[in-house]
């Protein structure tokens, strides 16, 4: 889906300082070489299967299906991966690539902390140095993940600028990369940023839809009718969609974090409330004011609390191939609790946004229809924050 200049329709591109241009060109060349290198792919598959625990399960949520009384619901259990989220897929790929390129140090941004934990994990495994930038606000919301990263040997730098959330962590990681390029790979966590990141991250996450396709064909003998995933930058969503893009019968639905609602300023629903802009290396949709100043977005979910969306999602929206729907904090928290009670699965609050939309549409669909929801991560990290949301103060 990518053209040679890293464009997805009008979106994408490489809007970055000249200082970084040779670094992204070097990365693109290395990726182009290794993606078809049998040895690289053998090593990566081994890491996926032996270390991360792939393939992840496609679980038939029978109780949820019965309870909602409509379409059959399957859960793609990325929460069962090592480190508890889909983030590990991309990180193992990039860390291996960086190692092949002779880099000895990984830097990363993180929102909820899942990508930071995954990067720290891969760095520990491969004997690389690791520095993670995390908004100060998020280090408070996700204190447990900060501890996990430090335990894994990474340095966590709280970012105090701007809204002290994910966008500021990305800005700070980009600044750091311009100051130290030769030994450092910026392990970007989502399908965003300058080309070739949106393509590289998508390719490493595409294993999700590759497996869903094989698994559903085996279980049901046909493709699903709907695939639903949450979208911040959009890496688990593009991973879940990718191998279905050419199957027009499969509806692809991305769930954006609406925060307190898309009619308020406290939202992070980029496709629903943003407009086309240029930021963090890419052209895409961004939440911004009339002067192009990036808006201080909000969501209960630190992982979806980002004012932009990956360029391929922007393109899938433009051509009408995927739908992007807003899901509020309230709906997500309800879905978080619902899945816990109904299936005994505590999803990440990010993934709960996707569950919430499935709860809305499943009852309206016939019983012979199939919905696949990607559970991008597990919700242990969110328990304290959700308890607070419900007015209960627990100590982690």
């Amino acid at each position: 889906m990518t053209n040679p200049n890293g464009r997805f329709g009008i979106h994408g591109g490489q809007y970055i300082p000249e200082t970084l241009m040779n670094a992204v060109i070097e990365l693109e060349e290395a990726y182009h070489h290794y993606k078809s290198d049998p040895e690289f792919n053998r090593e990566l598959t081994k890491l996926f299967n032996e270390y991360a625990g792939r393939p992840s399960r496609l679980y038939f949520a029978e109780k949820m299906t019965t309870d909602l009384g409509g379409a059959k619901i399957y859960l793609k259990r990325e929460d069962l991966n090592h480190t508890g989220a889909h983030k590990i897929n991309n990180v193992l790929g990039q860390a291996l690539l960086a190692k092949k390129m002779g880099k000895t140090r990984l830097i990363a941004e993180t929102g909820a902390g899942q990508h930071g934990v995954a990067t720290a994990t891969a760095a520990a495994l491969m004997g690389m140095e690791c520095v993670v930038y995390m908004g100060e606000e998020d280090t408070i919301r996700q204190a447990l993940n900060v501890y996990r990263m430090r335990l894994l040997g990474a340095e966590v730098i709280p970012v105090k600028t701007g809204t002290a959330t994910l966008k500021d962590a990305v800005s700070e990681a980009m600044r750091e990369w311009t100051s130290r390029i030769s030994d450092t790979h910026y392990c970007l966590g989502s399908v965003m940023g300058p080309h070739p990141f949106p393509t590289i991250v998508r390719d490493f996450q595409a294993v999700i839809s590759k497996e869903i396709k094989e698994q559903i064909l085996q279980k049901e003998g046909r493709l699903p009718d709907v695939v639903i995933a949450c979208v911040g930058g959009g890496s688990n969503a593009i991973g879940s969609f990718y191998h279905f893009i050419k199957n027009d019968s499969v509806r692809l639905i991305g769930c954006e974090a609406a925060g307190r609602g898309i009619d308020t300023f406290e939202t992070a629903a980029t496709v629903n409330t943003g407009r086309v802009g240029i930021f963090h290396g890419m052209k895409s949709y961004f939440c911004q004011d009339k002067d192009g100043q990036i808006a201080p977005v909000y969501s209960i979910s630190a992982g979806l609390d980002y004012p932009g969306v990956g360029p391929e999602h922007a393109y899938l929206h433009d051509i009408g191939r995927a739908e992007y729907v807003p899901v509020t904090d309230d709906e997500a928290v309800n879905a978080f609790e619902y899945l816990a009670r109904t299936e005994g699965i505590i999803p990440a609050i990010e993934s709960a946004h996707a569950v919430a939309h499935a709860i809305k549409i499943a009852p309206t669909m016939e019983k012979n229809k199939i919905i696949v929801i990607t559970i991008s991560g597990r919700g242990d990290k969110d328990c304290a924050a959700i308890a607070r949301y419900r007015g209960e103060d627990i100590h982690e």
Partner: protein
Amino acid sequence: MSKIKSAFENGKAFIAFITCGDPDLETTAAAVKAAVDNGADLIELGIPFSDPTAEGPVIQGANLRALSGGITTDKIFSFVKELRKNVEIPMVFMTYSNVVFSYGAEKFISTCRDIEIDGLILPDLPFEEKEEFLPTCHKYGVDLISLIAPTSENRIAMIAKEAEGFLYIVSSLGVTGMRNEIKTDLASIVKVIRENTDLPCAIGFGISTPEQVKKMADISDGAIVGSAIIKILEKYGKEAPKHIGEYVKTMKDAIK
């Protein structure tokens, strides 16, 4: 066509960067005036952006102060139109791609021509993406300034050949901000530039002292100073212009 080259016709150029609206536009006007009166050859006016990814903490701070003071692109355009009545030397805007894109490239760049802004510096618009704004810049006679970094290496010739106005050489890796030492082999970069263009080139990032400015101007055609000036604004606020005047005089004297 470009007026920018006149900035390099009186010996080595001293280029001063000032963020519009930090802390308010009256102070910006007085600061520009003080810099011009004390020998600045070109003024780089920053239009603040909420998330300036190429800036260090000092200029980030200026952007935030200006934005929280209620600055907008339209206010800056009106301000520059007034400012132009008293300032004859070339002036360029330094901002981020989204500020131009969001305003509408056609409307933004045609306004630049109307208010006599001579060029545009966009640190997040590399050679590969310049088509985004270049045709419009050509249409209205506004120079799109190219940057060259310590990591540009094999790209220098390509960039220099198609450059306009002047070449902005980034002295060091990393973001803007004062540095104790500049280690890049800038003379080699300048040599490649000279082989590929007749345009002047100036060095920026990390320059704050008279010794540094002299060293940089000796290698190239001029020096750009930003964070050191913003520091004065940060320290003295509305009282900053007279201190900026003194500072610019010291720096300009060092390269005479």
